[in-house]
């Protein structure tokens, strides 16, 4: 299958290793990966901060960049949720009905990574090896908007060497929420503190999730505490094998790619 990879603006700019791992994984599973160079952002940050009019050309750019793609995969539940639930609506409200139709049509071919692996490719054992104690944070938009359910758990349980430990209070938000983390920095920090306390209580080496943004938040907090527990994106775990443990993982800040 020919898969178009949507890196997402945040991953592409700040944690490119996550997109790289996604591509590596899909290629290892025998699929052709293409990376449209015209891609930028899904528009979610603008919409969620109140700039829905400004988001319209961003949506248009996204639709242009991925036009004609057979399947689009992104390593981010939150961006895929925005593509599914916001893009067409934003365009329609602006009177751009053609764009709305195109965006809705594109959304039908856009998948979050774990959903793509389990539902479209029909695999749960991707042949990964990751000999670490790991806890999984089900990010809000993956959990409640995309309803990815137990798919990430099924993928993680099939990883050789991986010890999966349950995260207490898993379904509580980490406090990221895009610009919420800045506009309501104190409340966001209070939520993060509780999330970190739960992560640390598991004594896991690694906290993983399907959203780089939430991981940047949790990882940024753990790093500030010098906690030692690191955050690694699900794609990076699934891309790791005996032969090649993904070398530069998210919280080892990507000094080079």
């Amino acid at each position, binding site marked *: 299958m020919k898969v178009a990879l949507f890196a997402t603006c945040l991953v592409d700019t*700040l944690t*490119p290793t996550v997109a790289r791992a996604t591509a590596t994984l899909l290629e290892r599973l025998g699929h052709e990966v293409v990376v449209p160079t015209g891609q*930028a952002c899904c528009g979610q940050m603008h919409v969620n901060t*109140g700039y829905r009019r400004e988001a319209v050309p961003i949506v248009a750019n996204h639709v242009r*960049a991925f036009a004609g793609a057979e399947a689009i995969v992104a390593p981010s539940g939150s961006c895929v949720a925005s593509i599914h639930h916001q893009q067409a609506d934003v365009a329609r409200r602006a009177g751009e009905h053609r764009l709305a139709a195109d965006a809705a049509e594109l959304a039908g071919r856009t998948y979050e990574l774990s959903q793509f692996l389990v539902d479209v490719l029909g695999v749960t054992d991707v042949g990964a090896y990751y000999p670490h104690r790991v806890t999984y944070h089900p990010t*809000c938009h993956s959990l409640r908007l995309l309803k990815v359910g137990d798919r990430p758990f099924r993928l993680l349980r099939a990883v050789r060497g991986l010890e999966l430990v349950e995260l207490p209070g898993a379904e*509580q938000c980490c406090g990221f929420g895009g610009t919420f983390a800045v506009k*309501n920095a104190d409340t966001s920090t209070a939520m993060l503190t509780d999330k970190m306390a739960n992560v640390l209580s598991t004594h896991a080496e690694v906290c993983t999730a399907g959203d780089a943004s939430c991981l940047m938040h949790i990882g940024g907090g753990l790093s500030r505490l010098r906690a030692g527990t690191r955050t690694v994106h699900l794609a990076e775990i699934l891309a790791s094998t005996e032969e090649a443990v993904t070398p530069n993982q998210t919280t080892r800040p990507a000094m080079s790619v």
Partner: protein
Amino acid sequence: MTATVPGPARTFLGLPTAPRGVGHLRGDESFPDAARTALRDGQLRANLGHATSTIRGKRARVVAELPDWAELREAGRALKAATMARLDDHLEELERQVTARGGTVHWARDANEANEIVTRLVLATGASEVVKVKSMATQEIGLNEALEAVGLDVFETDLAELIVQLGEDKPSHILVPAIHKNRAEIREIFARTIPGVDPGLTDEPRQLAMAARAHLRERFLRARVAVSGANFGIAETGTLTVVESEGNGRMCLTLPETLITVMGIEKVVPTWRDLEVFLQLLPRSSTGERMNPYTSTWAGVTPGDGPQEFHLVLLDNGRTAVLADEVGREALHCIRCSACLNVCPVYERTGGHAYGSVYPGPIGAVLSPQLTGVEDNASLPYASSLCGACYEVCPVAIDIPSILVHLRSEHVEAQEKPNAEALAFRGLARAMSNPRLWHLAQRASRLGRLFARGRPTLPNALPPPISGWTRSRDLPTPPTSTFVESWTREHGR
């Protein structure tokens, strides 16, 4: 308190919002500022954490028990939507039916008008005191202050409202207004304020409840006028409904000669049969019980049973302005169960006072700004991480996150001059809609590497708004190249 200040903001249809200077829909400070203070209160955090986790567990158990919860929820949503679409007809029918059964219906455009009507009705009875059933609508309009201003004594009879009133505090939760107080704090308030209370009073909840019983018993038996709210008003029969637990509601609805009920216009329900949906959704969502201890219904006046004079005050106070917004009007579907507060990670940490309105939590963050006009509560739509837990538990499926996002846009679009944030978002939008500009912008972000000076994370001290992040979290140093760049380098276009 009742001074008339400049006229209310108006919506795009010109429908008036709730007036300023009366009632409790606006706070003194913005949400982030109020939250900052609340977050430092360790006792508050502990009380809220304990109470909300208790009620979350109870709700989850009794909801899981019903095999048709999803169908009930969908019926509740659809019933509310259908009611709003013909709100005028249902209200006129309600008025006809209540009047036919011996009640008197009054209409109030806003808080001031409602307060005037109730005050006039109470004074006409010659009574000097009023007993009250917990009611969000009367809290919203500041009725107690209005009645006290003419020299009437007002007694809140719900236990939590009593705690708030005796403690000269403000309510912080829709269902449990004193949720921010623990048993020790409540004991202290009772020991200090209830005349003749047993000096050996302990903090055992049962003992505290008994102290409230003893304190209010005499007042119930001598009360001549009661004021209540209503959970539902059934148009086809004129039947009013109050859902409660303690029996204080029954005392107020049954013993006085005169009953005055203040009901928001959105609380009308078309038919008696519709209650079969709401009476299953509400108790399980609010107190986590299969059914609340007492539900009272009455239609007008019943000779020989209960008050012989009944007044229904129908309150607008900004509700029609909410109705005019096709996205936001869903907030009027709320049945005040407070499930969204109990699951909200923001509410659980800041408590209700930070919202500044009698309607706190997620539903408050969409309701208050619409009732007052967004600019009077501009920080509330942002008081959410959009985690969606509220939508998941809402018994009538109000899509609160989508309304929050909608109101954020209403706020942004109401600004006449763009501020720094707006300029930044516009610039970013231009870049994100043009690949060439976007790649330039991404390269520019690499300037952050200069600040990092070879370290893996950026320094803590950065200018606002980034400082909001770096105060408590590290920010990774941007990489030397983006993924798309390096991929394109390797694979060609």
